[in-house]
């Protein structure tokens, strides 16, 4: 695969940002306060924006500066703001009746990272590459995917589900910045925009959910079975 050669300094900086994002995913996994999720998500988006910008500097691709700017604005500011509004409106501030305690969730999340690491090594071996940046990017991308799914399955507040989906997307976005910095600008922008629309739709639907079913917890959505 064509992966640009990085200087040791750049490689360690990218690694730092990727690991920082992964840690923030764990912050979300380990907390039961919905507001914490949102701050962690916003910060994660800023780290990814920083990654895009430095990558743009490194591979001399000015398009990436634009993507960094939009990532920071959309994912770093606008999305957290939208989520904050939804949070206020729903009036739920933390997860009650946890299915899995945060400590257990963290352990399962760590196991997910190990799995992702193994898969990343296998892919790298198949590609005949031992670039540590690539392996790290793959690991973080896959483990954020797994952590997102973990959050979707063990959390049941509507907001947690939205944030779980956003982690899934952030993971892909982070990975794609490192692995395919040349991905067409148009596609990336449309996906960013699409995400915004998606969150807006989620917000509207969550309001209906409260209004019509009287709950934001998926544990109480039990009407449709069989």
């Amino acid at each position, binding site marked *: *695969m*064509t992966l*640009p050669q990085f200087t040791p300094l750049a490689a360690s900086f990218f690694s730092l940002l990727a690991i920082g994002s992964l840690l923030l995913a764990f912050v979300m996994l380990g907390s039961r306060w919905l507001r914490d999720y949102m701050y962690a998500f916003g910060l994660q988006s800023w780290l990814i924006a920083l990654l895009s910008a430095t990558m743009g500097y490194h*591979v001399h691709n000015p398009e990436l500066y634009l993507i960094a700017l939009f990532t920071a604005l959309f994912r770093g500011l606008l999305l957290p703001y939208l989520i904050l509004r939804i949070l206020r409106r729903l009036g739920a501030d933390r997860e009650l009746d946890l299915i899995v305690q945060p400590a257990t969730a963290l352990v399962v999340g760590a196991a997910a990272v190990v799995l992702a690491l193994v898969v990343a090594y*296998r*892919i790298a071996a*198949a*590609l005949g590459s031992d670039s540590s940046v690539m392996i790290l990017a793959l690991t973080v*991308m896959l483990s954020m*995917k797994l952590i*997102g*799914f973990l959050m*979707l399955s063990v959390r049941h507040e*509507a907001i947690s*589900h939205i944030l*779980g*989906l956003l982690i*899934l*997307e952030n993971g*892909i976005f982070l*990975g*794609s910045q490192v*692995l*395919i*910095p*040349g*991905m*067409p600008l148009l*596609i990336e922008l*449309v*996906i960013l925009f*699409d995400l915004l*629309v*998606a969150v807006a*739709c*989620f917000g*509207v*639907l*969550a309001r*209906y*959910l409260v209004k*019509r*079913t009287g709950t934001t917890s*998926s544990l109480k*959505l039990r*009407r*449709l079975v*069989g």
Partner: protein
Amino acid sequence: MSLALACIVLIVPLAAALLCLAVRSPRAAEAINLLASLVTAAAALPLPFLAEPARIGLAGYLVVDPLGAWVVLCAALVYLLASLYAVGYMRLLGEPRRLMRFYALFAAFAWTTLAAPLMNNAGVYWIAVELTTLVSTFLVGFEHAPESIEAAWKYIVVVSAGISLALLGTVLFYWAGTAALGPHYDMTWGTLGGVAAQMNPTLATLSFLLVLVGYGTKAGLAPMHTWLPDAHSEGPAPVSALLSGALLNTALLGIVRYKSVAEQAGAGAVPRTALITLGVLSLLIAALFIVRQQGVKRLMAYSSVEHMGVMALGFGFGGALGVAGALYHMLNHALNKSLMFFGAGAMMRAYGTKEMTGIHRVGTHFPFVGTLWLAGAIAITGAPPFGLFLSELAILRAGFTPADAWAVAIMLVLLVVIFAGFLNHFRIMYFREAAAVVPQTRAAGFWCSLAMLLAGIPLLVLGLWWPAAFTTVFHAANAALMQGMP
């Protein structure tokens, strides 16, 4: 010519959606949507027959190839039938003020479903499929009952999570393509197919599996089908028809296209085996839930899982016969499932219940609609002389090879189970002597009967006569799949 028609298909429903938002009268919205669906169907009808050789337009973002055009044709027909039906059905809802919004959403949903198969760029295709979810979730929740909202919420969460896997697969496919094309390129189906031979096989296999699970969620393949029975049963009947007859095919198309790319990339037997396994699993889950089903629309929803499984098997077996069978099945299923949902919606309204236990002696109370619905039920179980018999037979024949015989054997057994289970429900609804339950209203009236008739007649015709022009399209589609994309 074909590009101009494709542009009509792309523009008209969107324009209708915007117009419906602007008008203030429900009747005007009805008329606009109906007119748009007529124009769209008229433009989509000749599209597959003009699509060879494939044309690319709109700066490379639009493609008209036999495969995509066929999916568009199926979707446009369902859109037309559902629009006809909606005129009668949605008036029964008794909320004329909200009809404008309904038709705007309905046309927008049809637009996204029709647009996705015409997208030449794999990334844009993903966006179009994601948009279908965002629009249709509000249609599923349109009736605002707690059940509908619950279904809509499950739908958007499950499908968004699933489709994010498809995005990951898309990104990895792009990455695999950079080996030959360098960091910058347009990810069209044609380019992907063209450079597939230089992709790393392991990476292509992984990417395909991610795409399969992602778009498989949207296509309702088991075990990712969990949203489907809820969404299909809780939306208004025209929406159920459009979800089942149009949307699922659109998502399946992505799987089929990526499968061709992955096979070109040397992924070996993994893609087809994975697709066949999911197909068999869908049939199994559907059979189990059909036999013990109680809700009338949920019955139809599980039948959709079954038929997506059958199509997955057809595309999985592949070859001229498998692809032809699957594509023919797509059309037949689109027509038949529309008919079934229309009938189910009419009966739900007439008897005021979603449960099959509350529906009695349909044939006596509704001679015309009841006969059509019963014929549809016989057709959907794959009995002759209807279209689904021919297409299922073609798929079965395609699978009669030493490698796939196991799948065919299981498929046959499960089809028999589904035949018995499905028709048993209809036996009870039609012929069981019960306390004299008199339906509250007359059947849904002229528009509903018309839509059901228009869905039923072609079903019978297609069962007696397999048009040669179709075969040409199927062969062209198969040829394109065999050598990578158009």
